């Protein structure tokens, strides 16, 4: 290890250090003063985020177990920005009386999952990949059960940990077969010898279902809604954007590099799963009244769209996926931020509680509307661009009917997003939720989301950067 290696691994190292620093400070603080951790951690993480943007060289470490490229750094940075927003949005919630003793744990668990995601994205072999995956999952289960006086939270925790264990078991079985067939766990070796034989397809399917679980693709999504609903709202937003985004990143990388040889097979699988995911996700979302659950199903449907980019199989596809995830992070965090702010202040999470909200809290409603429009893919907000590029990439591979189904699904999704808009703007309510003012951090978080939602689409530079780093299925 030399200095440049440290620089290469700066995301992981810095975050580990931050986590440890938080732990140490926490141990030395009196119970009364625990809330000081919040500003400290926030500033540390902010620095971490900024440092992440420093230029870095692509390199490979640990004999290929860890590798990083500009693209991977970009992915990590995208995740960082998302996490930063989430942290900002969780401040109010953390300051609550019942959470006071667990503040540092929240941060440490969150950071360790983020570290897991870093390693997962950077992994050069299945071992690190698996480790990263687990590191990114297990602490979240603990976070989901964070509110342990709430039955729902506990239920979310157990549902998450057990189903993720099952899925990672199946995924591992797949990996073991891949190992058996190719004799290696290193991606670079595997991609050269992976062949389209029944067993390798089977192994791929096992592996893929595990990933599908993470991204919550139908029919491997069933945990999602329950966990999202039960988990503390900020954990939910973390799960829905960061966790899912990271999984999408690594999935597309693996699809394009390791499993490139069986692209004809997995394209069929993806096609099927994409249709199922978009449709079922939307159908479930239609009926939801609980905002978290609602956003859960909406995020399932959104995951289906991501597959369109993978199906594209070219540079455009990867760009579209990454860009979409970026946009999706901002949009979803905008929506979650509002839900979180309302839920934290008033404890209300049902859509009915949003009736007539505009009359009391117009700004929040506007942001929510923008975020939902972005999720639905309505111009001029960023979601439109994200979706358009995804569709374009699928169309570039000739999947016109899939695009059609996808856009129809986007229309259905517009329906339920509009239901929320309707609740806020149109429905009459004798007693709408009273006016509330969130604290500075939450507002900052919301403003950043709003900015992202607005700017990302028009600012084509971002798309171009991603595009310059992306690659297609390697032949």
């Amino acid at each position, binding site marked *: 290890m030399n200095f440049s290696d440290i620089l290469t691994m700066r995301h992981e190292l810095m975050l580990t250090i931050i986590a440890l620093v938080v732990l140490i400070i926490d141990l030395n603080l009196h119970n009364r003063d625990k809330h000081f951790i919040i500003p400290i951690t926030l500033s540390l993480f902010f620095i971490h985020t900024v440092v992440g943007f420093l230029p870095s060289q692509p390199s490979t470490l640990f004999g290929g177990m860890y590798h990083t490229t500009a693209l991977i750094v970009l992915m990590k940075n995208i995740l960082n920005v998302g996490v930063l927003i989430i942290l900002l949005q969780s401040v109010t919630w953390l300051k609550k009386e019942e959470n006071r003793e667990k503040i540092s744990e929240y941060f440490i668990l969150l950071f360790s999952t983020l570290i897991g995601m870093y390693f997962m994205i950077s992994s050069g072999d*299945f*071992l690190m990949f*698996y*480790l990263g995956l*687990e590191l990114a999952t*297990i*602490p979240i*289960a*603990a976070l989901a*059960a964070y509110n*342990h*006086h*709430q*039955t*729902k939270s*506990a*239920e*979310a*925790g*157990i*549902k998450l*940990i*057990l189903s993720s*264990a*099952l899925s990672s*078991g*199946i995924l*591992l*079985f797949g*990996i*073991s*077969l891949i*190992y*058996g067939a190719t*004799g*290696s*766990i290193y991606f670079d070796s595997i991609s050269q010898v992976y062949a389209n034989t029944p067993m390798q397809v089977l192994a791929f399917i096992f592996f893929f279902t595990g990933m599908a679980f993470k991204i919550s693709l139908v029919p491997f999504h069933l945990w999602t*809604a*329950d966990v999202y*609903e*039960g988990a503390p709202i900020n954990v939910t937003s973390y799960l829905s954007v960061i966790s899912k985004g990271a999984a999408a990143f690594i999935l597309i990388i693996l699809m394009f590099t390791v499993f490139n040889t069986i692209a004809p097979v997995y394209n069929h699988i993806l096609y099927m799963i994409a249709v199922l995911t978009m449709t079922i996700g939307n159908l479930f979302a239609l*009926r939801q009244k609980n905002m978290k*659950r609602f956003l859960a199903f909406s995020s399932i449907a959104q995951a289906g769209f991501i597959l369109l980019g993978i199906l594209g199989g070219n540079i455009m596809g990867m760009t579209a996926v990454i860009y979409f995830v970026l946009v999706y992070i901002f949009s979803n965090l905008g929506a979650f931020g509002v839900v979180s702010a309302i839920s934290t202040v008033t404890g209300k999470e049902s859509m009915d509680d949003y009736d007539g909200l505009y009359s009391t809290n117009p700004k929040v409603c506007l942001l929510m509307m923008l975020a939902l429009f972005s999720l639905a893919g309505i111009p001029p907000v960023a979601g439109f661009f994200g979706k358009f590029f995804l569709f374009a990439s699928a169309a570039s591979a000739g999947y016109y009917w899939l695009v059609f189904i996808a856009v129809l699904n986007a229309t259905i999704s517009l329906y339920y997003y509009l239901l929320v808009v309707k609740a806020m703007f149109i429905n009459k309510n004798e007693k709408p939720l009273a006016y509330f003012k969130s604290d500075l951090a939450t507002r900052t978080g919301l403003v950043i989301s709003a900015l992202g939602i607005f700017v990302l689409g028009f600012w084509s530079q971002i798309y171009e950067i991603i595009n310059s780093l992306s690659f297609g299925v390697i032949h």
Partner: protein
Amino acid sequence: MIQNIPLSYYLVISTFMFFIGIYGFLTRRNLITMLMSIELILNSVNINFVAFNRYLYPQQLQGHFFMLIVIAVAAAEAAVAIAIIINIYRNFKSIDVENVDEMKY
């Protein structure tokens, strides 16, 4: 000395064990037994890794170490799972999975 027993035997064992684990996961009502089924699944995967390593690629120890890591991960997973189960027990006064369905539809 291992040539007498073909690799496939190990694979048969591991596959059955894997699916027995899954069966357990799908049918055991007790959360802890479900966790135990998970352990069965992981164990079957380990057998796979080890057998592949031993039979096919003994030069490197990739499967070997993979198995080690899986064990460690299994331990971590079990720890968190058991903590949550205990929490469930406190909240629900039961660890029957059927009762843990407050959130649905």
